[in-house]
Structure formats: structure tokens, C-alpha cells
């Protein structure tokens, strides 16, 4: 069952990659409006996406059966489910608006998310007491669904910006849109770095002194650029860390981040050298085909659809469960706070749009920032800020 599950996830992953290119074809041929070729590409692309999505659902269900609980209990499972739901949300929006450009940008983001997820331990973990509740299923799935629908608005915003920012002139917008591209490449860098060192089977153990002044062991899976506080190597011939960090800093995670940035930056420079253009400029022709008005409306509509779902899953169900499990419905745990921040942010988004007329560009940037907040809550709050939710 577990093997079947993994295979299905892999099939979904490949299908999304293929569908991305098919959507690219659909966008390219869309200049000849409503031609047969456009219809063919578009139909093929969405079919492959749906096949991938069904396979992805198959992964989810088989893993659920194998584990005996909803596969949303650790970082790998949650992030994968999130990626899957982004595709689901895209399919939903696609059938309302039928815009291939959306698929061209939404699918690679889903692929990146799933690839990122796969870098974390993939084994099926039994549930710790705090997670043993049917609210795990209800709360986490609803919250992820809400976040994934909100993510579509960022995709629409990204397309809007790629289309409308003048990349021939120097501007703040040109800088920041390229920064977004660079960050996407960094995620790829993380995947590349993790895969490289894990293929090389790199392992090194160190002893270190933690902030409570206890001696503990830490296993690195990447060459230690940064060493833990007062670390000494246990593994023979382990690399001596270049810089030793104070006890407050988790040097292992810092090392992972640094390697990811290094790999990502090298990758980015290579891409720039090969393409001889900004990445945004490479993508711009694809975005140019999209109608700004449509993109703006999709961005707004996905926030409208996603916001109530997010509220229900990430705040209301969360509070009900928190009251059952932790005796209080709200405890200012970092993950809770960041869910509240996400909610407040989208509330501001909606108000600015409705009453201050923040359409088009401003709305698009806000949608992107909203996605960054969601990703911050998913990645940084789990990995950096320790709290009750750090189950990874």
C-alpha cells in the first residue's frame, strides 16, 4: 500500500510537469483565437492535469488507508496535501474561466511545493497524543484547502504583474518581480542541495552544547558550514565547521539554508547565462497573452472563495480543536498567531479592494504578499520559531 501510494505521488508529479508544458503550448497557440490547435492543446493540458490530480488523490487515499489517519500529520504530508490542493483549486478556477496561462504558472508552483515537501522525512509516523482526534482531519484539510485557493490569487497576481510590468526599464517593480523569480529558484536550490547530498549519503555527527548547557548530539546531512555551539566532531574525517554559531542559533538549519542559497544562486546565474534575459522576461511573453481584467478578477475571486474556507479551517475549527486538546481555544502559539496574521492580511486586502479601489497592480502585489505570509507560516514558523505546532 505504501509503495503504491509513493508511486501514485510520483505519477502525479510527472503529470503536473508534463501538463505545464502542454499549457505552455496552449498559451503559445492562443494568439490565433479559438483555433483548433489552441483547443487541442488546452484540452490535452487540462486532461493531463486531471489525470495527475486523480493520481495525487490516489496517493492521499492509499496513504490514509495505510496509516489509519489522514496523511496531514507531518511536514511532508501536510505540504504535499497543500500542493495537491493548489492543483485542485486551479482545476476549479480553470473550469470557471478557462485560461491556460493560469495552468502554466499554477502547476510549476504546485510541482515546487511537492518537490519541497519530498525533502522532509517521508515515513509514515504514528500519531502523538495531541494529534489523535478527528479534528486533525477536519482542521488541517480545511485550512490547507483555504490556503490553496488563496494561493491561486497569487498565481493570478503573478501573471498580472508579469504581463504589465515594463521589463525594459529599470524600476522597483522590475526588481521585485525578478526577486520573486529568484526565490522560486532558491526553492529549487534547496531541492537540488538536499538531493545531491542525500545521493552522496553524506552524514556527519557532532556533539554540541545547547543553550541550557547540556551536551547533545546533532547529525548533519550537509557539510557543516556552520557549527553548533562548541561542537566537536564524532564522525571521523568530518569537516570542521567554517564558523561556529552561538547556542541560540540552530547551525544545522542555517547550514541547510546556506547550501540552498548557494545551489539556488548558482542555478540562477546559470539560467541567466543560458537565457541571456531576466527570468521574468523569459516568462513575460506567456503572460502577455492573458487579459489583465480576467487575471484581476480571478485574483479577487479566489480570495473571495478561499477566505471563508480559510477562516473556517484555520481559525474556527482550529479554535474548537485547541479547546479540546490544549484546554483553551486560543493560546498565542506562533502558528496560531500567523494564521491570524494571514486572516487579517486578507481582510485588509478585501477592504482595500472594496473601498479604496485597490485593483490591478496593487491588488496583484498584495496577493503575492499574502502567499508569502502563507508560505512563511508553513515553512519558517515550523522550522525556525518552535511552538506547539512543530511536528516535523
Amino acid at each position, binding site marked *: 500500500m505504501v509503495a503504491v501510494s509513493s508511486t501514485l505521488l510520483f505519477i502525479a508529479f510527472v503529470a503536473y510537469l508534463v501538463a505545464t508544458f502542454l499549457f505552455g503550448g496552449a498559451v503559445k497557440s492562443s494568439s490565433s483565437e479559438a483555433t483548433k490547435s489552441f483547443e487541442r492543446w488546452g484540452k490535452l493540458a487540462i486532461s493531463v492535469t486531471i489525470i495527475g490530480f486523480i493520481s495525487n488523490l490516489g496517493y492521499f487515499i492509499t496513504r490514509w488507508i495505510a496509516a489509519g489517519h489522514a496523511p496531514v500529520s507531518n511536514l511532508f504530508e501536510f505540504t504535499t496535501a497543500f500542493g495537491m490542493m493548489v492543483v485542485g483549486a486551479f482545476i476549479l478556477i480553470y473550469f470557471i474561466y478557462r485560461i491556460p496561462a493560469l495552468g502554466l504558472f499554477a502547476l510549476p508552483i504546485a510541482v515546487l511545493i511537492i518537490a519541497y515537501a519530498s525533502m522532509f522525512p517521508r515515513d509514515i509516523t504514528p500519531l502523538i*497524543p495531541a494529534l489523535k482526534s478527528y479534528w486533525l482531519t477536519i482542521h488541517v484539510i480545511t485550512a490547507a484547502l483555504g490556503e490553496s485557493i488563496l494561493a491561486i490569487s497569487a498565481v493570478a497576481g503573478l501573471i498580472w504583474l508579469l504581463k504589465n510590468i515594463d521589463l525594459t526599464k529599470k524600476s522597483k517593480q522590475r526588481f521585485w518581480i525578478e526577486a520573486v523569480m529568484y526565490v522560486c529558484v532558491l526553492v529549487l536550490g534547496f531541492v537540488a542541495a538536499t538531493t545531491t547530498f542525500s545521493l552522496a549519503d553524506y552524514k556527519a555527527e557532532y556533539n554540541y552544547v545547547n543553550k541550557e548547557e547540556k551536551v547533545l548530539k546533532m547529525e548533519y546531512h550537509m557539510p557543516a558550514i556552520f557549527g553548533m555551539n562548541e561542537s566537536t566532531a564524532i564522525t571521523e574525517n568530518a569537516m570542521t565547521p567554517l564558523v561556529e554559531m552561538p547556542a541560540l542559533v540552530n547551525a544545522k538549519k542555517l547550514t541547510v539554508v546556506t547550501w540552498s542559497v548557494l545551489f539556488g544562486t548558482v542555478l540562477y546565474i546559470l539560467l541567466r547565462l543560458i537565457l541571456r534575459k531576466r527570468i521574468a522576461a523569459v516568462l513575460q511573453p506567456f503572460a502577455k497573452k492573458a487579459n*489583465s481584467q480576467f487575471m484581476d478578477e480571478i485574483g479577487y475571486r479566489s480570495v473571495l472563495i478561499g477566505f*471563508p474556507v480559510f*477562516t473556517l479551517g484555520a481559525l474556527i475549527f482550529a479554535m474548537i480543536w485547541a*479547546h479540546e*486538546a490544549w*484546554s483553551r481555544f486560543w493560546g*498565542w502559539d506562533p502558528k496560531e498567531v500567523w494564521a491570524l496574521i494571514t486572516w487579517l492580511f486578507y481582510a485588509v486586502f478585501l477592504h482595500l479592494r472594496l*473601498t479604496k479601489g485597490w485593483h490591478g497592480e496593487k491588488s496583484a502585489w498584495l496577493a503575492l504578499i499574502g502567499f508569502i505570509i502563507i508560505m512563511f507560516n508553513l515553512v519558517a514558523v515550523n522550522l525556525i520559531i518552535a511552538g506547539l505546532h512543530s511536528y516535523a
Partner: protein
Amino acid sequence: MDKIVCTCGNVNPAGTELCESCGRPLNQETKEKKLVDMRYEGSARRSQTYNKTIIDKIWNFFSSVKVGMWIIVSILVAAAIGTILPQVFYVPATTEADIAAYYERIYGTFGKLYYELGLSDLYSSWWFQTLIGMLGISLVIASLDRVIPLYKSLKKQQTKRHISFLKRQRIYGIGEIEASNESIDKAEEKLKTMRYKVKRDGNAILAERGRFSRWGPYVNHTGLIIFLLGVMLRAIPGFYVDETMWLREGETLYIPKTDGYFLESKEFTYETYSKEESSEVFGEAIDRVGSIAKNYQTDVALYKGADDAVAGKPDELEFVKDSSIQVNKPLKFDNFSVFQMDFRLDELKAMKFQLQDKETQESFGDFTIDLSDPQPIYELQNGYKVEILDYYADFTGFEEGVPQSKSPLPNNPAFLVKMYSPEFPKGETSFVMIKETLEPLGENKHKIAFQSVETRDVSGLTIRKDLTLPILMLGGLIFMIGVAQGSYWNHRRIWIQRLEDGQVVIAAHTNKNWLSIMKDIDAVSVVANLPKYEDQQDLDSKAEKGEGV
């Protein structure tokens, strides 16, 4: 201020921008605009009309969405700052001094600063609470300022609108069409089948649907206000209880703040997943992580005593029920819930000793000290006895010759004892600790030899009563209804009119999803002859015409 009388005869409240009845612009500024601002139907909002008294000024301040947004952004930023370092309630220290020291020791200068600025307890700071309060006021005022005039003008709107109103709509078209009267009839029929409420007034049609979505924002704001009020109710005595208790196996204790309820711990269980017993798929994870917790459980019996019974163990305890408290499965009674929150394994319960001759190790009898209730004297056979002079539950060492105990918890018990025997009727003094024995008053013949211990587990329980929960649930429910109402439905209106000169006008407005309303109009155009319309705001599609989408 005076009321405004429109050319059509309708009397509008002062400050109205668009006549409630026919839609004519009522002031110069509105007349000059190419498109009218339809957000509140051009109705007279108090905040836009009066600005004289202090009450006007406060009202205007809080009714502003801009101000509201600044309040939310401030809360958002403050909330984020509060997650940089753990808040005080997650820090393993209780006294102010310990907490301050903790922040400095663990997080250095930044931690010290964070603590001194009060950021370590940010969410209960006066200014954060003030921001939340301001948000509440803003919600009330901003909603009232808008919903009442909006309601009035939507109620008063007439089917026939003035051309000056129609041509300032975002979707607008005008033209001569053949068989215009027939077309209007057909359009009316078609719109009815599309679940529009259609009103007809001569040559004019007003088709409207989903008006109730306009109330969504005000409904969800009401929900939020109820929620915030619910949170405030906590401050009223009796509404909210948050207590903790440590309950040892075998112990029966009064449950704090209840009306005479007592809880007995029968057993505490801590389980981890073992590779043998759990499902095969978990093997890898158990290997990788080591031990994974499976269950924390306290088996308890609940008793009820007299309502005012608090301490000790009253005689008349009435058994209520047995229960197993687990994480996610609290014990519930009356309005209280008892949660499994913490535990300590193997706390010392009793220690068994033997009085011996130091050299021959001959035994003169065993005795067991119950660490929660040490007896002053333990009588042994043949005139031997042991007197406990002093008991140090959590012995940490001597200070100036005086033994110290850190806490009343039996973490490291030590005893000052006197051993009586026929040979030493005045007794020999000994200081007994777990691993060694001191003889402070000179060499003894006898000793107290440690035999064994009994341990028991301690459950950390939280006792909670929260009578505000139903109010919070109600607030949440109303919020969800409102937000769904406002998000998943749209208020669409389509006006079709045949003017006196024979031209037909079509205009439409929706609060969102403009593409959908255009699809609706296109569907009507299939059966009825309608003039071509355009989206007067979509510059992009004008530019892109011919280029294709």
C-alpha cells in the same frame, strides 16, 4: 442641514449623492464624474455629512475604512513581533526576576531588550488590548455608518432610473434597435428564467438578484462584534476558570473553583509506540525518531462533596463517575472540563528502611515512611524505635550547617532521625539521605539502611470553565454566515429602458464578478435585441480588441 429635493420629486436626506429614487446625481462633483461610485448607492452617510461636534469627529474617525485598516495593520505587525521570541507563558520560569534572567541568559541583549520593552507579554499589554478595543469600535461604527443608508436607498430605488444615472454605470450601452418593445418583453421573460427578480415600469425593467449578499459584510461584522464581546465577558467573575492541579496516584483532591467536586487518581499511564505492537508501516519512523509518545492517560474517579467542601477529604463523598482523561478527551462535568496537560513519572511515594547494627548488619526491624505523611515515631520490635526529627523533601545541601529543602516535593528526601535501642535509650542521631548517611553527633553503633522505594506518577491537570464559549460559537457562526453570504453571492442589477426618443439603454451593476454579469447580459441578448454594451472601465480589452484574448 436641509434635505435635498430631486427633480423627480423624491426628498433625499442631506448628503445624498445620487437620488434614492431615480438615481440623478445631486451635486456638482458627482455630475462631473464619468462613472458613479455605487459602493453605498450614493447614499447619505453620517460620516460624510456631519463634522461639527466632538461626537461627529469621533464617529468620522472610526467610520473610516482607512483608519480601520491602519488598526488592523497595527495589530498584524504587533502580533508578528510577539512571535519573534516565546511569550512569557511558554517560558519555564515563574517569578519576574527568573523570567527576566531567562530572557537575558537564553537570548542575550536582544532578549533583555525584548523583555524590558514588554514584548515578552505583548498580547496582554494595555496597548495591544486597546488596539483590539479600537478595532471593535471601528467595526460597530463603520458598519452602522454604511448599512442604514444603504438599506434605505436599496429599498427606495425605482425601476425607472434617470439616464444620467444609467450612463454613469460601468456597463452601459445605448442604441436604436428594431422591435424594441417586443425585445424588452423578451428580456423580461428571459431574466425571470435566470432567477432575477424583475420589476417592470412601462418601458423600464429592473432585474435584480442576490441583494442579500450586500448585507454579508454587516452580518460578518456583527459576528465579529459578538465574538469580541464574548471575549470581554471572561473578565466577569464566574464566567471563566483556569486552574491547574497536580494529582498523585491514589490521591483524592478537591478540584479548585468547583462546588465541592473531588478527583481521585487511580492510575496514570504513559505509553510509547513499540515496533512490535504497532502497525508495520510505522516501523521506519519509530526507528528514525526513537520513541514516539502514544498515550497520556489518567484514570480517575469523580466525587461530589458538600458544595462548600474544599480541603481535606470530607467523609461524605458521593461517587459521581469513573473516567479516563486523555489528551483530546477531557473529563466533563457541570460546566467544567479537566484536561490531561502534563505528568511526572515515578515520583517517590514511600521509602522502606531497616534499622541495623552497622558492623554485623543484624536487623532490628523494617519500617516504611510515607513521604507525603511521615510519622513522628516508628516503633520496632524489642524496644527499638526510630524517631523522625525533621524531614527535608527536596534536600539540596547544607547552608551554614542547616539542611535546606528546595520544595515540598519528594525529589530528594532526607531525614534527621534518632535511633533508640536498649543499649542507647537516649538515642543516636543520624542524618539519612538516599545514598549516604551522616553522623553529626559522633560515631553510631546503629544505622538506617535503605531498602527500597515505592513510586507513583503524578498527573498535571488543567481545570477549565468557560461560559463564554457559546457566545464565541455564536459569533463565529454569524461571521461565517455573513462572510459566505458576501463572498459566494453577488448583487446584480440590470436596467433596460426604452427612452422617449426610441433608443434603448442597457446598464448593469454588480458588486463583484463583472465577467459573470456580462455573461448574463449576453445570454439575454441571444433571445432579445439589445444594444451593444461596453465595460467602461476595462481599458485592457479595448486595447486588446483585434489582438484576441
